């Protein structure tokens, strides 16, 4: 089961949630497409603010990066500093 973490204004969609990834969702790109189909409001919010994705606490640079069910996948709005 993958853990999804939401930060900053994306916490409007929850703090975190655990979800089983479908068998065909095995890259970040596929995940974003899947989320766009299931949760268009969330996908639109991410796209609008140019949110970054982190897998296991590392920012994703390549959308073809593999993901697995044990991963922690975080959605990070632009960082504002403290």
């Amino acid at each position, binding site marked *: 089961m993958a853990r999804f973490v939401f930060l900053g204004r994306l916490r409007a969609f929850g703090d975190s949630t655990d979800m089983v990834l479908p068998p065909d969702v095995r890259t970040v790109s596929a995940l974003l497409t899947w989320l766009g189909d299931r949760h268009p409001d969330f996908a639109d919010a991410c796209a609008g603010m140019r949110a970054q994705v*982190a897998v296991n606490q590392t920012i994703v640079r390549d959308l073809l990066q593999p993901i697995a069910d044990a991963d922690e996948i975080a959605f990070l709005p632009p*960082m*504002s*500093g403290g």
Partner: protein
Amino acid sequence: MNVRLTNTALDVGAELAAFVDGRTDAGALVNFVGYCRDATAGQPVDALFIDHYPNFSERQIAAIAEGICRRFEILDLRIVHRVGRIEPGEAIVLVAALSVHRGPAFDGVRMLMDYLKIDAPFWKQESGPDGARWIEPSAEDLARRTEVA
């Protein structure tokens, strides 16, 4: 070097005392304390909420701080940053640097604060009479973005 994020009030005096305790090699201690104000751009602020990504935020800040230590020949750095709800008058951040002479400590603290204010992995929300709003870096902030290695 010590980086700590905390949701409890900062005791600046105790932090600084612990930081210099036992040091005989440092000729300079420079520190900066940032406070939560009760207004931004003329608008009242009741509280701040600073969100962070546990472990990720600490590691990112530590990596930048290590680069600054090397660049300015700083002996040691201490960074303590509040997260969670913060009210006006409370300290948000303490940055302290030790160096042999004063110049590197001043330079290092300034650069680290520029990073923490603009680029650090935090998400800041201000609350006031009109409700809460998330803050994004301004174009001016981004133009001042500090390059550190």
